[in-house]
């Protein structure tokens, strides 16, 4: 029994105990016990994942649990990465949930450890049956958690519906792909599938890849199957949103990497061009929607789509390079993508937990109504500020390192052969660049409008700091993001091991402790040195100013108001106005809807009493893609009503004809 196996066992035991605790303990101590249990599960998961990434693996097969096939688990470096990430996020959200989820009912509090445990089981599953079981458990538990607050708000039910339909549609497509593959193999365990994939015809392999890609891309929030993400994330409680955004969507990426690289053994170029294209479109569309948004959690949800798009750009590039034979560069691209997965988990958790703290204190998520939170909530403001910096790909930040790696991989990919690659790489670089710029704008808006200056509404004016466990949860996530920002070499060996496990390459793509050096390519970066240089420069400048300036004490002064009198909070820029120039530039893509409502005075139509301006940015892909499908389905449903005449005999007859028809078909085609 090695470290990986023991830790994983502890994680499962802690999860089971938390579930039992949630169902039996009385309300006063329940959330504390469940939260600590989830945190312990997470810690053990991190240990298991880290051990797996350093080379310790384990396998376990339990035949009695499920009829016919039993369940079997096998942890390798690739699965270990995702287990560790899920565990880390669980630690932060478990601690956070101790105060945040205090009023939950038994079932919702029990669903949290079920969700975490299921997410830990998915990367470990090594047969199709086990994978399906863990995936479905995860989907059901998360659905239950999304619907936690359905009594307080009517939109929660709609969000739950969308989430349920899309997640199950995704599951069905994944199952179709996997069963198609398993049908050509001798059994349904992953080693058997791997062996069968060698003999598959290209057409069948292509169908398997595309169907599983569709399902996993939907789970990862990739356009055009992302519609559940901006609905479910705002309505779910914040620690659940953090778990979904930072741990669950990664499992979509895990699925694509596992099936595409490991089980199917890489593939023709067009697979990876498709992945790259989907990633690029999602990244740009996601950040564009986030830049226009005014709902804080919806903005963060769209940012998840953007980051998963960037990850898929890396995965697609890795596949393209592997298909051209350049394994070293492919390992670099995949390592960049996986590092971005890890980094995104840290800063997205931090951002969602901070948003939850704001929601808890003010009761609103609307950026146009927030502001002035720096004095009443200093820790939350600092946390969100650090998360925003980490998310916006600026140094010193977590996303900066992974985007640097990604851009290095893309830039050095040009000499690789093929016109397709040659066109894809510049497009990918342009997409990454556009998202980087828009991400900076988005997070400046979110942080600056939401937290700085003066409160824009009374709800924000009455804010207060959150309880200590919520702050502790944010601190855990923030510390993890900071470590990744200045010392990414802590996780890089593990990430490289995972990438090599998937690709079958050897040798780490990125080495170095203080300075990251790329193997076989000229390029180096030292995030630590940059951060230290920046700090030194700040201190030097401050010292110089102190030396040179003669008067020290700062005098408080009035803000410039054009001499017209004191400024009111209504004169501040809101999130809508901040994003307005960008919205004008991208008007064709975004197509916002504006409403202007003018109320005149009773006496004369020339005198205006009030003007109300409302701007809504609908999700255009949803409108163009989903509306027609839903209308068609509704039309079919209406047409199908004619089959229901009310006669019991007719209904029975339908069944009889169907059975006879099937039997005839079976008899004839045998």
């Amino acid at each position, binding site marked *: 029994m090695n470290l990986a196996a023991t830790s994983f066992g502890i994680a499962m035991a802690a999860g089971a105990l938390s579930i039992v605790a949630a169902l039996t303990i009385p309300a006063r101590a329940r959330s504390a016990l469940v939260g600590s249990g989830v945190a312990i599960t997470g810690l053990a998961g991190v240990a298991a994942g880290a051990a797996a990434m350093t080379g310790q693996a384990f396998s376990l097969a339990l035949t009695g649990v499920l009829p016919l096939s039993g369940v079997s688990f096998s942890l390798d470096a690739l699965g270990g990465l995702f287990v560790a990430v899920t565990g880390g996020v669980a630690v932060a959200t478990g601690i956070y949930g101790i105060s945040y989820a205090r009023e939950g009912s038994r079932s919702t509090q029990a669903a949290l450890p079920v969700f975490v445990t299921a997410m830990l089981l998915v990367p470990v599953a090594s047969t199709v049956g086990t994978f399906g079981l863990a995936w479905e458990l995860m989907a059901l538990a998360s659905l239950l958690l999304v619907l936690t607050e359905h009594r307080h708000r009517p939109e929660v039910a709609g969000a739950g519906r969308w989430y349920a339909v899309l997640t199950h549609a995704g599951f069905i497509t994944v199952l179709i792909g996997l069963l198609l593959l398993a049908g050509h193999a001798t059994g349904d365990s992953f080693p058997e599938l791997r062996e069968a994939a060698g003999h598959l015809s290209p057409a069948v392999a292509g169908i398997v890849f595309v169907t599983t890609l569709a399902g996993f891309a939907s789970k990862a929030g990739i356009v055009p199957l992302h519609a559940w993400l901006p609905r479910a994330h705002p309505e779910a409680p914040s620690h659940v949103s953090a778990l979904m955004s930072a741990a669950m969507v990664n499992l979509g990426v895990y699925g694509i990497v596992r099936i595409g690289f490991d089980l199917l053994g890489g593939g023709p170029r067009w697979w990876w061009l498709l992945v790259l294209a989907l990633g690029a479109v999602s990244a740009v569309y996601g950040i564009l929607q986030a830049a226009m948004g005014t709902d804080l959690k919806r903005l963060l949800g769209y940012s998840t789509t953007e980051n998963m798009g960037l990850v898929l750009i890396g995965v697609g590039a890795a596949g393209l390079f592997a298909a051209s034979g350049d394994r070293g560069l492919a390992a670099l691209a995949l390592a960049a993508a996986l590092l971005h997965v890890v980094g995104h988990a840290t800063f997205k958790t931090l951002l969602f937990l901070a948003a939850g703290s704001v929601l808890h204190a003010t009761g609103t998520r609307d950026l146009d109504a927030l502001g002035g939170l720096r004095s009443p909530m200093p820790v939350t403001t600092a946390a969100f500020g650090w998360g925003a910096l980490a998310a916006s790909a600026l140094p010193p930040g977590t996303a900066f390192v992974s985007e640097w790696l990604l851009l290095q991989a893309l830039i050095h990919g040009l000499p690789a052969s093929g016109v397709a690659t040659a066109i894809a790489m510049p497009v990918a670089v342009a997409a990454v660049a556009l998202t980087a710029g828009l991400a900076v704008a988005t997070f400046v808006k979110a942080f600056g409008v939401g937290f700085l200056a003066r409160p824009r509404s009374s709800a924000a004016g009455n804010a207060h700091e959150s309880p200590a466990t919520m702050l502790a949860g944010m601190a855990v996530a923030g510390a993890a993001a900071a470590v990744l920002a200045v010392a990414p070499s802590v996780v890089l060996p593990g990430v490289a091991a995972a990438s090599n496990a998937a690709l079958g390459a050897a040798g780490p793509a990125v080495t170095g402790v203080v300075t990251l050096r790329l193997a076989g390519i000229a390029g180096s970066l030292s995030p630590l040195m940059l951060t230290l240089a920046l700090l030194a420069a700040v201190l030097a400048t401050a010292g110089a100013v102190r030396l040179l300036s003669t008067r020290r004490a700062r005098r408080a002064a009035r803000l410039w108001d054009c001499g017209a009198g004191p400024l009111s909070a209504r004169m501040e820029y809101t999130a809508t106005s901040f994003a307005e120039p960008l919205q004008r530039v991208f008007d064709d893509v975004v197509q916002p809807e504006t409403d202007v409502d003018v109320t005149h005075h009773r006496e004369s139509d020339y005198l205006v009493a009030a003007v109300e301006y409302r701007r809504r940015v609908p999700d255009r892909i949803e409108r163009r893609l989903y509306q027609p499908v839903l209308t068609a389905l509704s039309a079919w449903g209406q047409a199908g009503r004619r089959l229901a005449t009310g006669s019991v005999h007719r209904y029975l007859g339908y069944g009889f004809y169907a059975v006879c028809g099937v039997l005839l078909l079976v*008899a004839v085609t045998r």
Partner: protein
Amino acid sequence: MPGDTGYVQALDLACGALLLTAVLIVWRRELAVLIRVFAVQGLAVAGLVAVLAAHERSAELAAVAVGLAVLRAGILPAVLRRALAKAGQARRETRPLVNVAASLLAVAVLTMLAYAVSQPLIALAPSAATQAVPVGMTVVLIGFFVLVTRRRALSQLVGFLLMDNGITAVGFLTTSGAGLAVELGVSLDVLLAVLVLQVLASRMWDTFGSADLDELRELRDS
């Protein structure tokens, strides 16, 4: 082997009785006769299982055979008779949806279908028992047909029970015992279904004065 020939003959006898009773249920229209024929079929199924028990020398199967006899030849027909007593004058099936001649023709077609479908099953493990599987399949299809084409709730109930008899027969013929627990569970299910439907039929009779299902036309969504 002589023991074997005896076994095969007994098996064929039981299956023949099964098929014959099924055809009789399609042919006759008096409800009391239907119930009596159904009881005989119950005995035939029990007899089938007893033959298998004797061949396998299994006490468990013998116990199952006795249980089946009690249930399907005793309890269920009693319940059905009680429901019939409430029905009053209407002691015949009134104009089934498909007339008797066409029904018998349909039965012939269904028999051929059942034989065609069962061939792969027989090819899987040829033996005396599996050769009789098509009979069970036929009974299932006939039961479904009766369920669909009768107007009276009671006749439909008989059709449903016919299906169950057929499924039990096929189950025992192919696996020589689907497990005592499974059989118990299924029997309990069937008993409950019958009780519920009996209550339903009597309620319908009380409310509408007839148990003609064709009169019910409100079960739709508009």
